[in-house]
Protein backbone atom coordinates (compact mmCIF):
# COMPACT_ATOMS: atom_id res chain seq x y z
CA UNK A 1 0.00 0.00 0.00
CA UNK A 2 1.35 3.39 -0.91
CA UNK A 3 1.72 5.67 2.03
CA UNK A 4 1.66 9.36 1.36
CA UNK A 5 3.16 11.57 4.01
CA UNK A 6 0.91 14.56 4.25
CA UNK A 7 0.83 17.32 6.75
CA UNK A 8 -2.28 16.43 8.69
CA UNK A 9 -1.09 17.68 11.99
CA UNK A 10 -0.62 21.39 12.09
CA UNK A 11 3.04 22.10 12.86
CA UNK A 12 3.39 23.27 16.44
CA UNK A 13 5.50 26.00 17.87
CA UNK A 14 7.04 25.56 21.26
CA UNK A 15 5.37 28.73 22.47
CA UNK A 16 1.86 27.49 21.73
CA UNK A 17 1.34 26.37 25.32
CA UNK A 18 3.56 28.50 27.47
CA UNK A 19 2.05 27.07 30.66
CA UNK A 20 3.74 23.71 30.19
CA UNK A 21 7.15 24.37 28.83
CA UNK A 22 8.33 21.26 27.06
CA UNK A 23 6.61 18.65 29.25
CA UNK A 24 3.42 17.39 27.68
CA UNK A 25 2.70 14.61 30.19
CA UNK A 26 3.82 14.38 33.80
CA UNK A 27 2.87 11.21 35.63
CA UNK A 28 3.51 11.47 39.37
CA UNK A 29 3.48 8.23 41.34
CA UNK A 30 0.14 6.93 40.12
CA UNK A 31 -1.46 3.77 41.41
CA UNK A 32 -4.69 2.09 40.34
CA UNK A 33 -6.50 -0.87 41.87
CA UNK A 34 -9.49 -2.80 40.60
CA UNK A 35 -10.92 -4.26 43.78
CA UNK A 36 -8.06 -6.35 45.15
CA UNK A 37 -6.02 -6.27 41.94
CA UNK A 38 -3.26 -3.66 42.02
CA UNK A 39 -2.86 -3.00 38.32
CA UNK A 40 -0.54 -0.01 38.67
CA UNK A 41 1.67 0.39 41.76
CA UNK A 42 3.46 3.70 41.59
CA UNK A 43 4.47 4.81 38.12
CA UNK A 44 6.16 8.11 37.28
CA UNK A 45 7.51 9.45 34.01
CA UNK A 46 7.58 12.57 31.90
CA UNK A 47 6.92 12.90 28.18
CA UNK A 48 8.41 15.91 26.45
CA UNK A 49 6.98 17.74 23.48
CA UNK A 50 7.41 16.12 20.09
CA UNK A 51 8.73 12.78 21.26
CA UNK A 52 7.40 9.26 20.98
CA UNK A 53 7.38 7.74 24.45
CA UNK A 54 7.11 3.97 24.63
CA UNK A 55 5.51 1.96 27.41
CA UNK A 56 6.90 -1.51 26.98
CA UNK A 57 5.67 -4.41 29.07
CA UNK A 58 4.27 -7.94 29.04
CA UNK A 59 0.57 -8.86 29.29
CA UNK A 60 -1.01 -7.48 32.42
CA UNK A 61 1.89 -5.12 33.15
CA UNK A 62 -0.47 -2.18 33.54
CA UNK A 63 0.11 -0.44 30.19
CA UNK A 64 -3.56 0.02 29.33
CA UNK A 65 -4.48 1.03 32.85
CA UNK A 66 -1.76 3.69 32.74
CA UNK A 67 -2.74 5.02 29.32
CA UNK A 68 -6.43 5.04 30.31
CA UNK A 69 -5.61 7.16 33.34
CA UNK A 70 -3.76 9.65 31.14
CA UNK A 71 -6.79 9.63 28.82
CA UNK A 72 -9.09 10.58 31.76
CA UNK A 73 -11.00 7.32 31.25
CA UNK A 74 -9.83 5.98 34.62
CA UNK A 75 -9.01 7.91 37.77
CA UNK A 76 -5.79 7.08 39.60
CA UNK A 77 -6.30 5.56 43.05
CA UNK A 78 -3.45 7.83 44.15
CA UNK A 79 -0.89 10.08 42.51
CA UNK A 80 -1.60 12.61 39.81
CA UNK A 81 -1.18 13.21 36.11
CA UNK A 82 -0.92 16.45 34.25
CA UNK A 83 -1.38 16.72 30.50
CA UNK A 84 -0.31 20.05 28.96
CA UNK A 85 -0.27 21.45 32.48
CA UNK A 86 -3.87 20.35 33.12
CA UNK A 87 -4.85 17.91 35.85
CA UNK A 88 -6.53 14.83 34.36
CA UNK A 89 -9.09 14.62 37.18
CA UNK A 90 -9.90 18.23 38.03
CA UNK A 91 -9.52 19.57 34.48
CA UNK A 92 -10.58 16.46 32.61
CA UNK A 93 -12.80 18.40 30.25
CA UNK A 94 -9.95 20.59 28.96
CA UNK A 95 -7.62 17.59 28.73
CA UNK A 96 -10.15 15.74 26.58
CA UNK A 97 -10.26 18.60 24.08
CA UNK A 98 -6.56 18.22 23.39
CA UNK A 99 -5.85 14.49 23.33
CA UNK A 100 -6.49 11.78 20.77
CA UNK A 101 -7.18 8.25 22.00
CA UNK A 102 -6.75 4.96 20.16
CA UNK A 103 -7.87 2.16 22.53
CA UNK A 104 -6.29 -1.27 22.57
CA UNK A 105 -9.44 -2.95 21.27
CA UNK A 106 -10.94 -1.72 18.00
CA UNK A 107 -13.56 0.89 18.91
CA UNK A 108 -15.77 1.73 15.94
CA UNK A 109 -19.43 1.54 14.93
CA UNK A 110 -19.52 -1.48 12.64
CA UNK A 111 -22.74 -0.50 10.91
CA UNK A 112 -21.50 2.95 10.01
CA UNK A 113 -19.09 3.78 7.19
CA UNK A 114 -15.59 5.16 7.73
CA UNK A 115 -16.78 8.68 6.93
CA UNK A 116 -19.74 8.36 9.29
CA UNK A 117 -17.52 7.13 12.12
CA UNK A 118 -15.10 10.03 11.64
CA UNK A 119 -17.92 12.58 11.43
CA UNK A 120 -19.70 11.24 14.47
CA UNK A 121 -16.70 11.39 16.78
CA UNK A 122 -15.49 14.70 15.32
CA UNK A 123 -18.84 16.31 16.11
CA UNK A 124 -18.05 15.90 19.80
CA UNK A 125 -15.36 18.56 19.33
CA UNK A 126 -15.97 22.15 18.30
CA UNK A 127 -14.47 21.82 14.86
CA UNK A 128 -17.15 23.10 12.52
CA UNK A 129 -18.46 21.23 9.52
CA UNK A 130 -15.93 22.45 6.88
CA UNK A 131 -13.01 21.50 9.14
CA UNK A 132 -14.51 18.08 9.83
CA UNK A 133 -14.86 17.34 6.13
CA UNK A 134 -11.36 18.55 5.37
CA UNK A 135 -9.74 16.51 8.10
CA UNK A 136 -11.78 13.41 7.34
CA UNK A 137 -10.60 13.49 3.75
CA UNK A 138 -6.95 14.12 4.72
CA UNK A 139 -6.93 11.35 7.29
CA UNK A 140 -8.68 8.83 5.06
CA UNK A 141 -6.06 9.57 2.40
CA UNK A 142 -3.25 9.28 4.90
CA UNK A 143 -4.53 5.95 6.20
CA UNK A 144 -5.15 4.59 2.70
CA UNK A 145 -8.89 4.25 3.31
CA UNK A 146 -10.28 6.93 1.02
CA UNK A 147 -11.46 4.46 -1.63
CA UNK A 148 -13.42 2.51 0.96
CA UNK A 149 -14.74 5.54 2.85
CA UNK A 150 -18.38 4.77 2.07
CA UNK A 151 -18.26 1.09 3.02
CA UNK A 152 -19.56 -0.12 6.36
CA UNK A 153 -16.75 -0.77 8.83
CA UNK A 154 -17.94 -4.36 9.31
CA UNK A 155 -16.59 -5.13 5.81
CA UNK A 156 -13.08 -3.94 6.76
CA UNK A 157 -10.04 -6.07 7.53
CA UNK A 158 -8.37 -5.87 10.95
CA UNK A 159 -5.66 -3.60 9.57
CA UNK A 160 -8.16 -1.21 7.98
CA UNK A 161 -10.16 -0.96 11.20
CA UNK A 162 -6.98 -0.23 13.11
CA UNK A 163 -6.00 2.53 10.68
CA UNK A 164 -9.49 4.01 10.86
CA UNK A 165 -9.32 3.99 14.67
CA UNK A 166 -6.06 5.95 14.46
CA UNK A 167 -7.76 8.40 12.08
CA UNK A 168 -10.59 8.84 14.61
CA UNK A 169 -7.99 9.65 17.27
CA UNK A 170 -6.48 12.33 15.03
CA UNK A 171 -9.69 14.09 13.96
CA UNK A 172 -9.47 16.78 16.64
CA UNK A 173 -5.85 17.56 15.72
CA UNK A 174 -4.68 16.59 19.23
CA UNK A 175 -1.56 17.80 21.02
CA UNK A 176 -1.03 14.32 22.44
CA UNK A 177 -1.87 11.00 20.79
CA UNK A 178 -2.33 7.92 22.98
CA UNK A 179 -1.80 4.69 21.07
CA UNK A 180 -2.47 1.44 22.94
CA UNK A 181 -0.88 -1.47 21.05
CA UNK A 182 -2.00 -0.21 17.65
CA UNK A 183 -0.37 -3.02 15.69
CA UNK A 184 -2.07 -5.99 17.34
CA UNK A 185 -4.00 -8.06 14.83
CA UNK A 186 -2.79 -6.32 11.68
CA UNK A 187 -0.78 -7.74 8.77
CA UNK A 188 2.83 -6.66 8.05
CA UNK A 189 1.73 -4.22 5.33
CA UNK A 190 -0.69 -2.42 7.63
CA UNK A 191 1.85 -2.47 10.41
CA UNK A 192 4.47 -0.83 8.19
CA UNK A 193 1.90 1.76 7.07
CA UNK A 194 1.03 2.51 10.69
CA UNK A 195 4.73 2.88 11.58
CA UNK A 196 5.29 5.28 8.71
CA UNK A 197 2.21 7.28 9.71
CA UNK A 198 3.43 7.53 13.28
CA UNK A 199 6.87 8.64 12.12
CA UNK A 200 5.22 11.22 9.88
CA UNK A 201 3.11 12.51 12.75
CA UNK A 202 6.19 12.84 14.93
CA UNK A 203 7.96 14.79 12.19
CA UNK A 204 5.10 17.27 12.33
CA UNK A 205 5.68 17.73 16.02
CA UNK A 206 2.97 15.52 17.53
CA UNK A 207 3.72 14.03 20.95
CA UNK A 208 2.85 10.34 21.12
CA UNK A 209 2.53 7.77 23.89
CA UNK A 210 2.86 4.30 22.42
CA UNK A 211 2.36 1.04 24.31
CA UNK A 212 3.56 -2.27 23.01
CA UNK A 213 4.74 -5.71 24.02
CA UNK A 214 7.17 -5.80 21.10
CA UNK A 215 10.74 -4.73 21.67
CA UNK A 216 11.43 -4.12 17.99
CA UNK A 217 8.54 -1.64 17.78
CA UNK A 218 9.86 0.32 20.73
CA UNK A 219 13.36 0.19 19.27
CA UNK A 220 12.21 1.55 15.96
CA UNK A 221 9.80 4.25 17.06
CA UNK A 222 10.47 5.49 20.55
CA UNK A 223 12.74 8.26 21.80
CA UNK A 224 12.25 7.27 25.40
CA UNK A 225 11.10 3.94 26.70
CA UNK A 226 9.74 2.88 30.08
CA UNK A 227 9.78 -0.86 30.62
CA UNK A 228 7.00 -1.70 33.05
CA UNK A 229 6.14 -4.96 34.75
CA UNK A 230 3.58 -5.81 37.41
CA UNK A 231 2.51 -2.20 37.66
CA UNK A 232 5.97 -0.73 38.19
CA UNK A 233 8.60 0.91 36.03
CA UNK A 234 11.59 -1.40 35.97
CA UNK A 235 13.74 0.70 33.65
CA UNK A 236 13.40 4.01 31.88
CA UNK A 237 15.55 5.92 29.44
CA UNK A 238 16.55 6.31 25.83
CA UNK A 239 17.15 3.23 23.74
CA UNK A 240 20.91 3.70 24.17
CA UNK A 241 20.59 3.98 27.93
CA UNK A 242 18.52 0.80 28.08
CA UNK A 243 20.89 -1.06 25.81
CA UNK A 244 23.72 0.04 28.07
CA UNK A 245 22.00 -1.77 30.92
CA UNK A 246 22.44 -4.96 29.01
CA UNK A 247 26.17 -4.61 28.55
CA UNK A 248 26.73 -3.70 32.18
CA UNK A 249 24.36 -6.18 33.76
CA UNK A 250 24.22 -9.24 31.56
CA UNK A 251 26.89 -11.45 30.18
CA UNK A 252 26.10 -11.85 26.51
CA UNK A 253 27.79 -13.62 23.69
CA UNK A 254 25.52 -12.29 20.94
CA UNK A 255 23.90 -8.86 21.27
CA UNK A 256 20.17 -9.18 20.71
CA UNK A 257 19.16 -5.65 21.40
CA UNK A 258 16.29 -4.52 23.57
CA UNK A 259 14.70 -7.97 23.68
CA UNK A 260 17.43 -9.14 25.95
CA UNK A 261 17.14 -6.20 28.31
CA UNK A 262 13.40 -6.67 28.38
CA UNK A 263 13.52 -10.34 29.31
CA UNK A 264 16.29 -9.77 31.79
CA UNK A 265 14.30 -7.11 33.59
CA UNK A 266 10.86 -8.67 33.43
CA UNK A 267 11.79 -12.33 33.82
CA UNK A 268 10.85 -15.18 31.56
CA UNK A 269 7.80 -16.70 33.17
CA UNK A 270 4.52 -16.49 31.26
CA UNK A 271 2.25 -13.56 32.10
CA UNK A 272 -1.08 -14.36 30.61
CA UNK A 273 -2.16 -16.91 33.18
Amino acid at each position, binding site marked *: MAVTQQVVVAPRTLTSTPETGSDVVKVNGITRSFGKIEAVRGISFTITRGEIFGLLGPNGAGKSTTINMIATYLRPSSGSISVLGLDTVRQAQQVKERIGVVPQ*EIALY*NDLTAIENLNFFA*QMYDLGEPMIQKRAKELLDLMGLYERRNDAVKTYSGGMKRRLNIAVGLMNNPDLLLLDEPTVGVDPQSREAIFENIEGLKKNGLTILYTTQYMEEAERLCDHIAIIDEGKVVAIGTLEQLLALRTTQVEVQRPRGLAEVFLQLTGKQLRDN
Partner: protein
Amino acid sequence: MSDTATIAGKELRSYFTSPVAYVLTAAFLVLNGIFFAGQAIGSSTATMDGMFRTIPVLMLLLAPILSMRLIAEEQRSGTLELLLTSPVSDAAVVVGKYLAVLILYIVMLLFTLFYGLLLQLYAGSQGGPIWGPILSSYFGALLLGGTFLAIGVFTSSLTDNPAVGAFIAVAITLALWLAGNFQSVFQGAFGTFLNQIAITDRYYNNLMVGVVALKDVIYYLSLIVIFLFMAIQSLGSRRWR
Protein backbone atom coordinates in the same frame (compact mmCIF):
# COMPACT_ATOMS: atom_id res chain seq x y z
CA MET B 1 -26.80 20.43 23.36
CA SER B 2 -25.60 19.74 19.84
CA ASP B 3 -23.73 16.71 21.17
CA THR B 4 -27.02 15.42 22.53
CA ALA B 5 -28.62 15.89 19.13
CA THR B 6 -25.72 14.20 17.36
CA ILE B 7 -25.97 11.17 19.63
CA ALA B 8 -29.75 11.02 19.33
CA GLY B 9 -29.48 11.31 15.55
CA LYS B 10 -26.98 8.48 15.26
CA GLU B 11 -29.12 6.26 17.48
CA LEU B 12 -32.29 7.01 15.52
CA ARG B 13 -30.52 6.23 12.28
CA SER B 14 -29.38 2.88 13.56
CA TYR B 15 -32.94 2.11 14.70
CA PHE B 16 -34.36 2.86 11.30
CA THR B 17 -31.64 1.11 9.33
CA SER B 18 -32.08 -2.15 11.24
CA PRO B 19 -35.10 -4.41 10.76
CA VAL B 20 -35.58 -4.69 14.53
CA ALA B 21 -37.31 -1.32 14.87
CA TYR B 22 -39.72 -2.15 12.05
CA VAL B 23 -40.53 -5.57 13.44
CA LEU B 24 -41.12 -4.17 16.92
CA THR B 25 -43.23 -1.29 15.59
CA ALA B 26 -45.29 -3.74 13.58
CA ALA B 27 -45.76 -5.98 16.61
CA PHE B 28 -46.75 -2.97 18.72
CA LEU B 29 -49.34 -1.90 16.16
CA VAL B 30 -50.76 -5.37 15.53
CA LEU B 31 -51.13 -6.22 19.23
CA ASN B 32 -52.60 -2.83 20.03
CA GLY B 33 -54.91 -3.23 17.03
CA ILE B 34 -56.19 -6.59 18.26
CA PHE B 35 -56.99 -5.28 21.74
CA PHE B 36 -58.43 -2.07 20.31
CA ALA B 37 -60.72 -3.96 17.93
CA GLY B 38 -61.66 -6.54 20.54
CA GLN B 39 -62.85 -3.87 22.95
CA ALA B 40 -64.47 -1.56 20.39
CA ILE B 41 -66.34 -4.32 18.55
CA GLY B 42 -67.12 -6.38 21.66
CA SER B 43 -68.63 -3.44 23.52
CA SER B 44 -69.99 -1.71 20.40
CA THR B 45 -68.67 1.58 21.72
CA ALA B 46 -66.36 4.07 20.10
CA THR B 47 -63.54 3.54 22.58
CA MET B 48 -59.77 3.02 22.42
CA ASP B 49 -59.62 1.70 25.98
CA GLY B 50 -58.74 -1.80 24.81
CA MET B 51 -55.54 -0.47 23.35
CA PHE B 52 -54.68 1.86 26.21
CA ARG B 53 -55.18 -0.97 28.71
CA THR B 54 -52.69 -3.06 26.77
CA ILE B 55 -49.96 -0.48 26.29
CA PRO B 56 -48.42 -0.80 29.80
CA VAL B 57 -48.21 -4.59 29.41
CA LEU B 58 -46.66 -4.28 25.96
CA MET B 59 -44.23 -1.63 27.14
CA LEU B 60 -43.17 -3.74 30.11
CA LEU B 61 -41.45 -5.96 27.53
CA LEU B 62 -40.96 -3.58 24.64
CA ALA B 63 -39.24 -0.75 26.55
CA PRO B 64 -36.38 -2.97 27.76
CA ILE B 65 -35.97 -4.45 24.27
CA LEU B 66 -35.87 -1.02 22.65
CA SER B 67 -33.41 0.44 25.15
CA MET B 68 -31.24 -2.52 26.11
CA ARG B 69 -28.53 -1.93 23.51
CA LEU B 70 -28.27 1.83 23.89
CA ILE B 71 -25.39 2.00 26.34
CA ALA B 72 -24.49 -1.68 26.75
CA GLU B 73 -23.54 -1.89 23.08
CA GLU B 74 -21.20 1.11 23.39
CA GLN B 75 -19.40 -0.74 26.16
CA ARG B 76 -19.24 -3.96 24.23
CA SER B 77 -17.90 -2.30 21.08
CA GLY B 78 -15.37 -0.19 22.98
CA THR B 79 -16.78 3.05 21.55
CA LEU B 80 -17.84 4.16 25.02
CA GLU B 81 -14.16 4.74 25.77
CA LEU B 82 -13.92 7.10 22.79
CA LEU B 83 -17.07 8.94 23.85
CA LEU B 84 -15.93 9.28 27.45
CA THR B 85 -12.48 10.55 26.42
CA SER B 86 -14.01 13.13 24.05
CA PRO B 87 -15.36 16.41 25.44
CA VAL B 88 -18.97 15.19 25.36
CA SER B 89 -20.55 15.08 28.82
CA ASP B 90 -21.91 11.89 30.36
CA ALA B 91 -25.28 13.64 30.54
CA ALA B 92 -25.30 14.35 26.79
CA VAL B 93 -24.62 10.67 26.08
CA VAL B 94 -27.45 9.49 28.32
CA VAL B 95 -29.98 12.13 27.31
CA GLY B 96 -29.14 11.74 23.61
CA LYS B 97 -29.77 8.00 23.80
CA TYR B 98 -32.96 8.50 25.77
CA LEU B 99 -34.31 11.05 23.31
CA ALA B 100 -33.69 8.65 20.43
CA VAL B 101 -35.66 5.81 21.95
CA LEU B 102 -38.37 8.21 23.15
CA ILE B 103 -38.80 9.56 19.62
CA LEU B 104 -39.08 6.02 18.27
CA TYR B 105 -41.79 5.32 20.85
CA ILE B 106 -43.64 8.53 19.94
CA VAL B 107 -43.60 7.45 16.30
CA MET B 108 -45.13 4.13 17.35
CA LEU B 109 -47.84 5.92 19.32
CA LEU B 110 -48.58 8.25 16.42
CA PHE B 111 -49.26 5.28 14.16
CA THR B 112 -51.99 4.14 16.55
CA LEU B 113 -53.88 7.37 15.87
CA PHE B 114 -55.07 5.45 12.83
CA TYR B 115 -57.33 3.41 15.12
CA GLY B 116 -58.88 6.61 16.45
CA LEU B 117 -59.44 7.73 12.91
CA LEU B 118 -61.26 4.46 12.18
CA LEU B 119 -63.60 5.18 15.08
CA GLN B 120 -64.24 8.68 13.83
CA LEU B 121 -65.01 7.38 10.35
CA TYR B 122 -67.16 4.37 11.16
CA ALA B 123 -68.76 5.30 14.47
CA GLY B 124 -69.43 8.88 13.47
CA SER B 125 -73.17 8.22 13.14
CA GLN B 126 -73.35 7.27 16.83
CA GLY B 127 -71.48 10.35 17.90
CA GLY B 128 -67.94 9.06 17.31
CA PRO B 129 -65.22 8.69 19.92
CA ILE B 130 -64.87 11.11 22.83
CA TRP B 131 -61.50 12.66 22.13
CA GLY B 132 -60.83 14.15 25.57
CA PRO B 133 -60.07 10.89 27.37
CA ILE B 134 -58.35 9.54 24.28
CA LEU B 135 -55.92 12.45 24.22
CA SER B 136 -55.28 12.24 27.96
CA SER B 137 -54.70 8.51 27.52
CA TYR B 138 -52.12 9.26 24.84
CA PHE B 139 -50.47 11.73 27.19
CA GLY B 140 -50.49 9.08 29.91
CA ALA B 141 -49.08 6.45 27.55
CA LEU B 142 -46.28 8.87 26.69
CA LEU B 143 -45.47 9.53 30.36
CA LEU B 144 -45.72 5.91 31.44
CA GLY B 145 -43.82 4.55 28.41
CA GLY B 146 -41.28 7.33 28.78
CA THR B 147 -40.69 6.22 32.36
CA PHE B 148 -40.27 2.57 31.33
CA LEU B 149 -37.75 3.67 28.69
CA ALA B 150 -35.76 5.72 31.23
CA ILE B 151 -35.55 2.59 33.37
CA GLY B 152 -34.27 0.70 30.32
CA VAL B 153 -31.61 3.32 29.59
CA PHE B 154 -30.46 3.12 33.21
CA THR B 155 -30.16 -0.66 33.25
CA SER B 156 -28.40 -0.58 29.87
CA SER B 157 -25.68 1.48 31.53
CA LEU B 158 -25.08 -1.18 34.19
CA THR B 159 -23.72 -3.94 31.96
CA ASP B 160 -22.17 -4.67 28.59
CA ASN B 161 -24.69 -7.47 28.12
CA PRO B 162 -27.94 -6.12 26.63
CA ALA B 163 -29.98 -9.15 27.72
CA VAL B 164 -28.92 -8.73 31.33
CA GLY B 165 -29.83 -5.05 31.17
CA ALA B 166 -33.26 -5.87 29.75
CA PHE B 167 -33.88 -8.44 32.44
CA ILE B 168 -33.06 -5.98 35.22
CA ALA B 169 -35.30 -3.39 33.56
CA VAL B 170 -38.27 -5.77 33.58
CA ALA B 171 -37.58 -6.56 37.24
CA ILE B 172 -37.43 -2.89 38.28
CA THR B 173 -40.54 -2.02 36.28
CA LEU B 174 -42.50 -4.93 37.71
CA ALA B 175 -41.42 -4.04 41.23
CA LEU B 176 -42.70 -0.48 40.75
CA TRP B 177 -45.87 -1.78 39.09
CA LEU B 178 -46.73 -4.15 41.90
CA ALA B 179 -45.48 -1.97 44.76
CA GLY B 180 -49.02 -0.93 45.69
CA ASN B 181 -50.01 -4.55 46.29
CA PHE B 182 -47.69 -4.68 49.26
CA GLN B 183 -49.27 -1.67 50.92
CA SER B 184 -51.19 -3.87 53.35
CA VAL B 185 -48.04 -5.79 54.29
CA PHE B 186 -46.24 -2.65 55.45
CA GLN B 187 -48.50 -0.49 57.54
CA GLY B 188 -48.04 3.21 58.05
CA ALA B 189 -45.87 5.59 56.11
CA PHE B 190 -44.00 2.96 54.14
CA GLY B 191 -47.23 1.34 53.00
CA THR B 192 -48.54 4.70 51.85
CA PHE B 193 -45.26 5.31 50.06
CA LEU B 194 -45.54 1.98 48.24
CA ASN B 195 -49.01 2.91 47.14
CA GLN B 196 -47.79 6.29 45.95
CA ILE B 197 -45.03 4.86 43.75
CA ALA B 198 -47.21 2.21 42.07
CA ILE B 199 -46.24 3.04 38.53
CA THR B 200 -49.39 2.19 36.56
CA ASP B 201 -52.08 3.31 39.04
CA ARG B 202 -52.00 6.95 38.03
CA TYR B 203 -52.18 5.93 34.40
CA TYR B 204 -55.12 3.50 34.71
CA ASN B 205 -57.08 5.43 37.33
CA ASN B 206 -56.52 9.03 36.26
CA LEU B 207 -54.96 9.67 32.87
CA MET B 208 -56.91 6.94 31.08
CA VAL B 209 -60.26 8.33 32.28
CA GLY B 210 -59.44 11.88 31.27
CA VAL B 211 -58.04 13.24 34.54
CA VAL B 212 -54.76 15.05 33.99
CA ALA B 213 -53.43 16.07 37.40
CA LEU B 214 -50.22 18.03 37.79
CA LYS B 215 -49.02 15.77 40.59
CA ASP B 216 -49.29 12.72 38.33
CA VAL B 217 -47.34 14.44 35.59
CA ILE B 218 -44.70 15.48 38.11
CA TYR B 219 -44.58 11.90 39.42
CA TYR B 220 -43.70 10.45 36.01
CA LEU B 221 -41.30 13.25 35.11
CA SER B 222 -39.52 12.79 38.45
CA LEU B 223 -39.07 9.07 37.83
CA ILE B 224 -37.67 9.81 34.36
CA VAL B 225 -35.22 12.33 35.78
CA ILE B 226 -34.21 9.97 38.60
CA PHE B 227 -33.47 7.05 36.28
CA LEU B 228 -31.60 9.18 33.75
CA PHE B 229 -29.63 10.73 36.61
CA MET B 230 -28.70 7.26 37.85
CA ALA B 231 -27.63 6.30 34.31
CA ILE B 232 -25.35 9.35 34.20
CA GLN B 233 -23.91 8.42 37.60
CA SER B 234 -23.37 4.85 36.48
CA LEU B 235 -21.44 6.03 33.41
CA GLY B 236 -19.31 8.36 35.51
CA SER B 237 -18.65 5.69 38.11
CA ARG B 238 -16.66 3.57 35.68
CA ARG B 239 -13.83 6.08 36.04
CA TRP B 240 -13.19 5.15 39.64
CA ARG B 241 -14.75 1.66 39.96
